[in-house]
């Protein structure tokens, strides 16, 4: 039935919203919807043609005219609906790509392969645009966390020797059981790796 493919695409979009990865681009469905739109357009053209010729024939509209007019109307509705679904699908994916760009993480190959070629191009161009925008306000890392800062500095204890680390606040020699008051951002990785423990 007309519109079925489009509905599937929208359901796919809905599902994708709750995924943390962008699913594979649905080439076939998009293509078949475009084909459906073209078919509908041809039909609409024929219907419109018929309507026109009948109007010429007689001033009084017949019941069959109404049916034809209704057909034409519904045909147009189907086309617009298909178009809206395509746009909604693509916009949703573009939003997810934008999110990837802002999150500042390296896009892995698998995620990249799920994007269509045009989407990959979009990603790299949007990435450029965002860098440009960020560059105009270099005093603030605009891509940084949107969570309010808390505990900028923390006390840590060294769990295993980790050698020296260089920070803005000087060099720390991380020997087991020593304690330091450091910037959280400087030692985040070491905490994750189990070298340091937050007190």
């Amino acid at each position, binding site marked *: 039935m007309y519109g079925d493919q489009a509905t599937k695409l929208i359901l796919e979009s809905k599902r994708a919203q709750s995924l943390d990865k962008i699913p594979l681009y649905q080439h076939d469905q998009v293509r078949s919807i475009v084909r459906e739109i073209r078919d509908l357009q041809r039909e609409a053209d024929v219907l419109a043609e018929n309507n026109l010729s009948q109007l010429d024939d007689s001033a009084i509209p017949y019941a069959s005219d109404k049916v034809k007019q*209704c057909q034409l109307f519904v045909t147009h509705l189907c086309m617009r609906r298909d178009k809206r679904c395509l746009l909604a699908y693509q916009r949703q994916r573009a939003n997810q790509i934008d999110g990837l760009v802002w999150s500042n993480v390296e896009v892995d190959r698998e995620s990249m392969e799920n994007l269509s070629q045009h989407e990959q191009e979009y990603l790299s161009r949007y990435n450029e645009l965002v860098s440009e925008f960020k560059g105009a306000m270099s005093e603030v890392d605009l891509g940084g966390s949107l969570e*309010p800062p*808390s505990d900028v500095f923390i006390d840590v204890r060294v769990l295993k020797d980790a050698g020296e680390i260089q920070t803005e606040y000087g060099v720390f020699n991380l020997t087991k059981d020593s304690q330091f008051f450091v910037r959280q951002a400087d030692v985040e990785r070491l905490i994750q790796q189990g070298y340091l423990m937050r007190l």
Partner: protein
Amino acid sequence: MTELPPYHFTTSEINFLAEQESITILPRYTFNGTRLIGPRLPNLKALHRQQVPVWIALILKKQDRCNVVIPDWLSVSFLKQRYDEEVNQPNNFSELPWHWLPIAKMLLEKCSDDFIDATHEVRSTLQDLREIRQLKARKGIKELNEVYLQLDGLSLMEINEIRPFIIESMNQLRILSQSVKGNGQFTGIEEAAEKEDVSGLLDESEVGDYTRDSTRDSIARDTATTDSVARDSIRGSGVRSRKPDTSYGDTRDENDDEDSDVEYKKS
């Protein structure tokens, strides 16, 4: 960018705002202040009271550089008095600082030794106060209508907790009531339906300019019957939300207003 901002604040954002408030400290040592982007941090003299933002107070406290002067409102007697007010005036919220909840929490966590009252007593009184106010706020929600709601005396954190529910409900009520008033205009209903699910989003009744006027007219006439049926059924449910006074009659009459704690006026 992805989503539109949610129009409300996260708990950590409210905490952040609370940390901007001023508080009095009693420095334990003397030391020089410094220039900041905002108001400069003045030189601190040992045992001379000084007002600073909460976030600075907490840093100094953590380093054992100061004691925090616990605000008067964070005492058992003050909080008990407010609790009594809450009980005695069921239609109002008692007056408390705009950030009473997060500030109380931070000070209890990080400056418990600065309290004069026993902290477990402060905690439990705070908890009582919080609960009775939550109960009031919840009761007030039944006064929801599409025009407005008045909630004097709530603090920011309390507002933030009920905000998503209130905004979404009021919005839906307005959309429904508009579709009723609109007298045949379906816009409101479509708007409401759009929010419901995906299929609603795609339910379009658009008549483009791609058909001849005559075509459009005849179709409009053809569909008129079904239209009015749909409209009537929706009108039925719309009235209920538009005039809460009548439809909520069983749960609420004039005297019942005593019960409602959120001030509610509707002309």
